């Protein structure tokens, strides 16, 4: 134990020096350090490690790790210390520990492993952790402190406390305090439980559970209370997480449905190829990434306008070539556009591939936003949620505040009257359909970040989209937003106890029944005009 304590104290004293780069002009001091370690007899190994750690050398971590893994060897002939990269087979791949330069293969007979005994090995983890705890990067320090939770022993208490006094970052301090508290609870310290009661980390809970089972009654009671508090907080966090996943799924539904809310809801055109317009948007993203290899972020951002244009153009073609001839015949429109959806799917299968394509998630969208130990929000979903809201707000603005929106509303309410007032109804039809289709393309761009991009992508969303629009009340954009978000949330709430498939079935059946009860959805349009 002695070695650790003295070593870590030393380390902390050296903490300020740590950031300095290793000074190696003429002769690398690392060479001597490694040589000493390799030469040291069993009794002197501690000293040699001590020297390496306290040297402040940036490479120290790698060396000690290699030492612990039996990957530090000496070349018998020259006595040079090397890192063994691969120790399978007869020839081992080795590297220079000072420069990292690969030295190729060498027969294992020519190498001599630097010996390590089990006592030292047992301490290496702690040594490494302390090394990390003194790293310059607070993230590394935090991870290291988190790693120590539950592993703290008596020898680490003093160095940790010392580190705590120096530590500037609040989250690292919290971690160290928690790690210490776990140790102290084990020692029967009542106050330490208060510290753990504020933690959501599983190891804190494990320590408290152990205290409950332990033979100290006062400790057990208090630990039990603390566990209760934690459980409450966990419940809240789980609820928040479900809500987040629900809103995320909901935002996907909203994105998929909002274009339909325009073409179906406002114009009354049943476009069964809507899903395939979404698919086109997703494939546009894939295509852009092929155009800009290595720059997925740029490609994704460029996909937003491009995906819109591609889907809008496809929409215009569909409108001009088929839908305009089926005005006032909704059931025929439904069938014809379904046919178009089949053609588009098969087109993608034939031209691109029947297999799914991989769309890369740019770095700034991957990973997650960590709120606490029990709750972290995946960034890609967060972006999609925000994107959905932006798209919705923009559409709202277009429909409410622009000339186009006014004309659309005029044409849908009374086509002939609108025409006689000089509105070119046909042009409005085209523009509206293009807008709805373009939004479907945007949905595809966003979906490419969440799901597989394949020819069946659209099919998976078309029924859901229609359900959302109908549930929300046809012709009501707000209804679509609320319906989408709430259906997503309901689905996620059901999932834990019903399973994904059953949850979906339940939601579908729920909507089917709901529509029977209120055929006009959540937010119906009232009045004589709506009767038509």
């Amino acid at each position, binding site marked *: 134990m002695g070695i650790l304590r003295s070593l870590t104290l030393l380390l902390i004293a050296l903490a300020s020096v740590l950031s300095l780069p290793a000074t190696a002009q003429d002769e690398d001091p690392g060479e001597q350090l490694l040589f000493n370690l390799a030469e040291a007899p069993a009794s002197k190994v501690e000293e040699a490690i001590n020297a390496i750690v306290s040297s402040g050398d940036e490479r120290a971590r790698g060396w000690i790790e290699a030492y612990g893994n039996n990957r530090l060897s000496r070349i018998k002939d020259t006595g040079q210390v090397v890192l063994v990269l691969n120790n399978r087979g007869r020839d081992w791949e080795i590297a220079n520990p000072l420069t990292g330069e690969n030295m190729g293969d060498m027969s294992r007979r020519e190498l001599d492993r630097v010996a390590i005994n089990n006592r030292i090995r047992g301490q290496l983890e702690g040594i490494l952790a302390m090394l990390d705890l003194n790293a310059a990067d607070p993230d590394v320090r935090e991870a290291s402190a988190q790693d120590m939770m539950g592993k703290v022993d008596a020898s680490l208490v003093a160095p940790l406390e010392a580190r705590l006094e120096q530590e500037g970052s609040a989250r690292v301090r919290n971690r160290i305090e928690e790690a210490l508290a776990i140790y102290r609870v084990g020692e029967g310290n009542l106050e330490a439980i208060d510290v753990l009661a504020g933690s959501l980390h599983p190891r804190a809970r494990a320590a408290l559970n152990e205290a409950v089972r332990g033979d100290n009654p006062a400790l057990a009671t208090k630990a039990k209370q603390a566990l209760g508090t934690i459980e409450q907080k966990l419940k809240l966090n789980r609820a928040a997480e479900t809500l987040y996943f629900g809103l995320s799924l909901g935002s996907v539904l909203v994105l998929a449905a909002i274009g339909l809310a325009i073409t179906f809801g406002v114009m009354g055109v049943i476009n069964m190829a809507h899903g395939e317009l979404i698919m086109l948007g997703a494939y546009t993203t894939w295509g852009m990434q092929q155009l800009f290899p290595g720059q997925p972020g740029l490609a994704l951002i460029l996909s937003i306008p491009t995906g819109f244009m591609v889907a809008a153009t496809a929409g215009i073609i569909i409108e001009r070539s088929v839908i305009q001839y089926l005005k006032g015949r909704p059931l025929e429109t439904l069938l014809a556009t379904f046919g178009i959806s089949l053609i588009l799917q098969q087109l993608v299968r034939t031209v691109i591939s029947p297999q799914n394509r991989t769309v890369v998630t740019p770095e700034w969208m991957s990973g997650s936003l960590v709120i606490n130990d029990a709750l972290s929000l995946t960034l890609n979903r967060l972006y999609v949620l925000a994107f959905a809201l932006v798209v919705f707000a923009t559409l709202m603005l277009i429909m409410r505040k622009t000339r186009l929106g006014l004309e659309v509303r005029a044409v849908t309410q009374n086509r002939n009257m609108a025409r006689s007032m000089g509105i070119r109804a046909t042009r409005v039809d085209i523009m509206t359909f293009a807008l709805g289709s373009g939004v479907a393309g945007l949905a595809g761009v966003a979906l490419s970040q969440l799901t597989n991009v394949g020819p069946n992508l659209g099919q998976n969303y078309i029924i859901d989209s229609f359900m959302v629009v109908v549930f929300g009340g046809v012709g009501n954009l707000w209804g679509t937003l609320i319906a989408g978000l709430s259906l997503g949330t309901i689905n996620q709430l059901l999932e834990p106890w019903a399973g994904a498939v059953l949850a979906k079935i339940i939601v579908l059946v729920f909507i089917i029944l709901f529509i029977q009860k209120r055929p006009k959805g959540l937010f119906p*349009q*009232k*009045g*004589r005009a709506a009767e038509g």
Partner: protein
Amino acid sequence: MSMLEQLTHRDRVFDFLAPVASPVDVRHGPILYMEGVNVSFDGFKAINNLNLTVDDGELRCIIGPNGAGKTTMMDIITGKTRPDTGSVWFGSRHNLLTKNEPDIASLGIGRKFQKPTVFEALTVFENLELAMATDKRILPTLTAIMKPEYRDRIDEVLQTIGLQKLRDKLAGILSHGQKQWLEIGMLLMQKPRLLLVDEPVAGMTEQEMERTAELLTSLAGKQSVVVVEHDMGFVRSIARQVTVLHQGSVLAEGTMDQVSNDPEVIKVYLGEEE
């Protein structure tokens, strides 16, 4: 299985002359009674505290500018629209607010739509056949047979509305005026106690209008008729009692002369029309 059973009852008599549903009780006054009726669509008051009574056997004309609430009033009486408040009675026994359209129709209220609505894919004869007052439940309809007396009754009505020659033509090929007549004929087949007629002469020639006026006046007495019409000449030719609707409530009521001299009415409606 019960379908097959019905087959054995081919000789069952469905007397179309039998009184439909429970008889309307008019001993204690009017056949139609509306009180304090209010309807609003999204904040717009289509009907505003409407009170209206129609006596048994009366021929009543309802006039009023566009948006006065005439069609909505019809919708309420026939069960298509439910008012927010108020009461609507058919005779003194039937609360119409508790009934749906088919129930109300079988009680004996017939309606002619503003836009002539006939079944265009069926022949004139078949249109009248469907309107005939018979058992309108599913199985009786499925096994229904065309009895000679039914045929006679239909031919009689065809005669009345002057469409004998078009008997077996699809209703879709009829002219606008002929469709109006067919729809009136369908009303006659229903043998209703109360006829609601929405703009019966729109699109008719002078001659056709005259005959329509004749027909409607001849019906009054046996049946009660409520006519909604824009054509002032037509209203003048048939009206005994006129009600003026304005902004969802009754503005004036009386004979045509009384009403057309009412300064209020002249201001909102007649003044602009004549």
